[in-house]
């Protein structure tokens, strides 16, 4: 009778712990890519100029 809640608690703790360990070890590549894109948008002003490109592509050479 008591074993079901105890088992559930154990399973939950194990799941949470393993999730935390995963976060600590692995580099979040997708999140990093998203962060990079947000910064690149800002630095290169890609979002602001999106509607009105400064120079048409392929015009040079």
């Amino acid at each position, binding site marked *: 009778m008591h074993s079901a809640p105890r088992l559930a608690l154990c399973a939950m703790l194990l799941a949470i712990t393993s999730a935390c360990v995963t*976060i600590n070890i692995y580099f*979040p590549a997708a999140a990093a890519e*998203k*962060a*990079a894109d947000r*910064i*690149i948008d800002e630095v290169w002003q890609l979002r602001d100029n999106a509607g009105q490109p400064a120079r048409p*592509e*392929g015009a040079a050479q």
Partner: protein
Amino acid sequence: MKLVSRLRVLLAALLFSLAGHAAAQNNLEINTPAISALQKSMQQRHAQLAPLYASGALGLARDGTVALRDASSVPLAQRGQINALVSAENADRAALYREIARANGRPEWEADVRATFAQRWIDRAQKGWWVQGAGGWVQK
């Protein structure tokens, strides 16, 4: 009956842990004063760098930096100024990668952050700009 409820609890626990995992990996912290300042400084410098990317004097290197690719396309008198621009840009970029890793409590991620940025700078470079691939410089 008991087995079913146990399984249900286990499934709930599993889903819960997966949800937490996804939420934690969803975003990287980039809203710190240090990162914003670097971003602003790079944005201002970009007005001077953009024509140099377009002329091919500068290229986007594989290691997440800006490199002087073709010095001969720049008049001798301007080379010093361009070298200073490149050093300033690369100093900001190095600081940016370090700060992002630090802001997320993982200074050891700096090299991964740099590699991610290197790839995204290159992927998103405009047509006509030079980027460094595994086999050398190529024009987009």
